């Protein structure tokens, strides 16, 4: 009898299993007609996913294929992509910043794309340069961004020409109790290499030298060299023990909020900050980050957002088709701009949106002297030690020993 009990139980267990199995079969059954036309899977962050969806669907219906746009949070995107790619799966197309290229290439996660010259010419030159790595084009850019000086025109009607001008204006406003801070430039306890770089460059420092063909050269590290020490001495003079312009208490979390709260007249930030500034109802203007008087231009980093073709994608031919022929259309670039206001990399698209958004041209103008953010894997070794050296120097540490130590740490972790 026990056997019969067992048998009956097993039978129903199997029936249940079959029903559970039926559930998992359903999507598979749905996929099979899709597979006949091919499926293109795109990974993007939340904002871009929404903007991309209508275009992806249009591309799908035009060509008889299925396009899935999947939202992955921006901070996890690169990591998740590299992980699934190393296991032979993942999306066909990925959207991300151009400084991922070095890491994506060393992990064999993306393939080069081939754009004919006339198509390349339709893009901003800097944007194409940014997605070129080891002489190969690895992505199709759609937007670019760089830092600029955003100022409250009620408090500071004139754009400062030099940092010294800015400090003088800021101090005056502070003395009049109109503001509490001279400049909102995010530093934080760990420093922020990206935001301090314009001043560092203006004071004569550099991160990497360039090779003969214009690529960044990881062997020529500028941090720890005499130029970088001189630059950090100038930064130290603006720090907490000096003029009090740069402060560790101003960090990524409160920099924009302090500006929109009218506690400072100047904010160093990018196009992403303008939405908050507009919302706060502040009359503002955008100009280039000023450099030190008599120094070099305060070159901000230029970053580019780009579409990549995944090397391990199941549908590479379609991915190449989408990225090289469809992404380069101005309509898509304009839609992506509307989702997230960064200047389009496609010249035609920029011309379209420029008229309605005067900030864009100003940001591009501010990035005219900019340097392409290095995409080489060695750049990953810079961020943390450089930022901490910056924070220490701003807090009053000795620039010479601090920067020399940072240079050693960076050199030690570059292979």
């Amino acid at each position, binding site marked *: *009898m026990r056997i019969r*009990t067992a048998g009956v139980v097993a039978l*129903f267990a199997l029936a249940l299993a079959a029903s*559970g199995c039926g559930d998992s079969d359903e999507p598979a059954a749905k996929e099979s007609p899709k597979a006949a036309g091919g499926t*293109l899977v795109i990974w993007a962050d939340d904002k871009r996913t929404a903007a991309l969806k209508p275009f992806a669907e249009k591309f799908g219906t035009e060509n008889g294929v299925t396009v899935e746009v999947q939202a992955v949070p921006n901070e996890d995107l690169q990591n998740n992509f590299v992980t699934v790619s190393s296991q032979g799966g993942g999306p066909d197309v990925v959207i991300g910043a151009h400084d991922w290229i070095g890491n994506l290439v*060393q992990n*064999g996660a993306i393939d080069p794309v081939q754009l004919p010259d006339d198509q390349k010419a339709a893009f901003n030159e800097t944007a194409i340069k940014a997605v070129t790595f080891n002489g190969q084009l690895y992505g199709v850019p759609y937007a670019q961004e760089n830092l600029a000086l955003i100022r409250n025109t009620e408090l500071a009607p004139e754009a400062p020409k030099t940092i010294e001008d800015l400090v003088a204006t800021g101090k005056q406003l502070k003395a009049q109790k109109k503001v509490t801070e001279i400049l909102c430039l995010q530093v934080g*306890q760990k420093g922020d290499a990206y935001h301090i770089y314009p001043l560092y460059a203006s004071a004569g420092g550099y991160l990497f030298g360039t090779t003969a063909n214009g690529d960044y050269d990881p062997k020529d590290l500028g941090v720890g060299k005499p130029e970088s020490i001189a630059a950090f001495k100038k930064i130290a003079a603006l720090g907490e023990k000096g003029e009090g312009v740069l402060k560790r208490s101003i960090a990524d979390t409160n920099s924009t909020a302090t500006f929109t709260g009218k506690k400072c007249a100047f904010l160093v930030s990018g196009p992403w900050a303008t939405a908050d500034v507009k919302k706060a109802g502040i009359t503002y203007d955008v100009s280039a980050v000023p450099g030190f008087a008599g120094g070099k231009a305060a070159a901000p980093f230029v970053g580019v957002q780009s579409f990549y073709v995944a090397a391990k994608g199941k549908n590479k031919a379609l991915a190449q088709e989408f990225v090289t022929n469809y992404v380069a259309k101005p309509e898509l670039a304009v839609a992506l701009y509307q989702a997230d206001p960064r200047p389009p990399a496609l010249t035609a698209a920029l011309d379209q949106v420029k008229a309605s958004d005067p900030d864009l041209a100003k940001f591009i103008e501010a990035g005219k002297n900019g340097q392409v953010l290095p995409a080489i894997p060695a750049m990953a070794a810079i961020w943390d030690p450089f930022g901490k050296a910056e924070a220490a120097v701003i807090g009053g540490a000795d620039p010479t020993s601090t920067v020399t*130590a940072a240079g050693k740490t960076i050199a030690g972790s570059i292979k």
Partner: protein
Amino acid sequence: MSTPLSGPGSAQQAPGPGPGRTGPPRTTRTARNHAPITAAGLAVKVVLLGLVAGIAIWAAFPLVEAEQWIGLAVLVLTTAALFYLYLGRRHVPAKYLVPGTLFLIAFQVVPVLYTASTAFTNFGDGHRGSKDDAIVAIQSSSVKQVPGSTQYPLSVATKGDPTTGPLVFLVTDPETGTVSVGDARGLRPLDPGAATVAPGGKVTAADGYTVLNVGQASARSKDVTDLVVPTAGGALRSSGLSRAYEGTAVRAYDAGCDCVKDSDSGRTWTADGEVGAFVAADGERLAQGWKVNVGLSNFTRVLTDERISGPFLGTLIWNFAFAIGSTGGTFILGMLIALALHSPRMRGTNLYRMLLILPYAMPSFAMLLIWRDMFNTDFGLINNMFGLSVDWFGQDWSARVAVILVQLWLGYPYMFLVATGALQAIPRELTEATSVDGASPWQSFRAVTLPLLLVALSPLLISSFAFNFNNFNAIYLTTEGAPFPADNPSNGATDLLITYTYRLAFGGQDAQFGFAAAISLFIFAIVAVVSAVSFRRTRQQEEVYA
């Protein structure tokens, strides 16, 4: 779900009389065999076993697809063993032990073993896949368009069935307008007039060929990307589905010398199995490497790297101080409050309890970030409220005090809760007896209440210590290890071993999982030793007071 639901219902009748009839001859066995089979019990059994079977079948498909036969064998054996165990009536102790054991293996033993095995490899960015993956990546990323060559409008076509027939490229020369057909043998011009060419240059129809539309072509994506048409200057490859370009792979792998050769520069990179990369004579490495076994080098690096061994002792001491301070501080505060509320003279205890538990009810992630902002020098609530200008996270000791204060706030409600529970379990007669004997309240607390409390709470204190020893969030979401000495950006004053090693493994060049695994084994060893010693002492204590 609707069909099987009627199943168990009808199944109840069939086995019903079973135990009645099989029961009598086995009366001498354990009483459990007599336990009647209830409908609810049977239904639960059916549902759970059904779930097991369902999960097993769901897991089997990807395993078959990936040809993981060992994994499939493990899956089948485990499932079969589970069914044998729970469908039979014997092995009662095993029925209780197996689920826990399975979960222990799946979620504790396997990850630990995987971590341990990773510690002996160079797994990390640039060394994720196999050597073959690296070779494919090197070759495909070196395909360059031949300088001066043109790009051709492309159509993918076949002579046979669109889903299976061998593919050809139909390309149009943009200057002359001649249409050519290309396959693996080469490029041949097509008779003029045999093809219909759209204005853009794309062939829309050709005699004898079926031109694939985008959907059909993309369904054969791999065939399209794999088709290489040899030409005089290089080879014609597809760039998407509507364009072809002439390109050559500049770098090629040569199995003979186990090296990669660059036809442009003439350089060679020879495979080095020790480091898992192709290395040139001058030491330059190709970025795309592969995963290799590196033996003990990750462990020796932990011991010999000055950046690690130098500040290690100081970090370890602070790590202990942090764990002891967090655990001890929260315990003392929680216990004092529990004692206060335990007093029979206290009024409104429920309200107090509710208020005191509030910090416990809030998500610690958000609270840590809020505390971080409250400690801000110029804008933080703490400095503004007390009129201070302390640079909390900028000085070693103020930062350490700050993170322990945050831990105290976050952790005391837990200790308060468990201490309240333990206090209620201590009979009041004991303390009353001490007061009859003339002991002061302090003496009775020292001699009776505290030891009994500790017997009950020691395991919790040890686990709390182990948790705080590796409390990554507490540091990473507040100070991030700051302040850092000016001359050493890799080790800060509030760094715990876990945040410090996280920075070493992931904060520098790129993710180094092998190295991180080696460090985590070291931390595991430290925590394991501390816990083992504490549990030993607890047992001795229990023997005294039990």
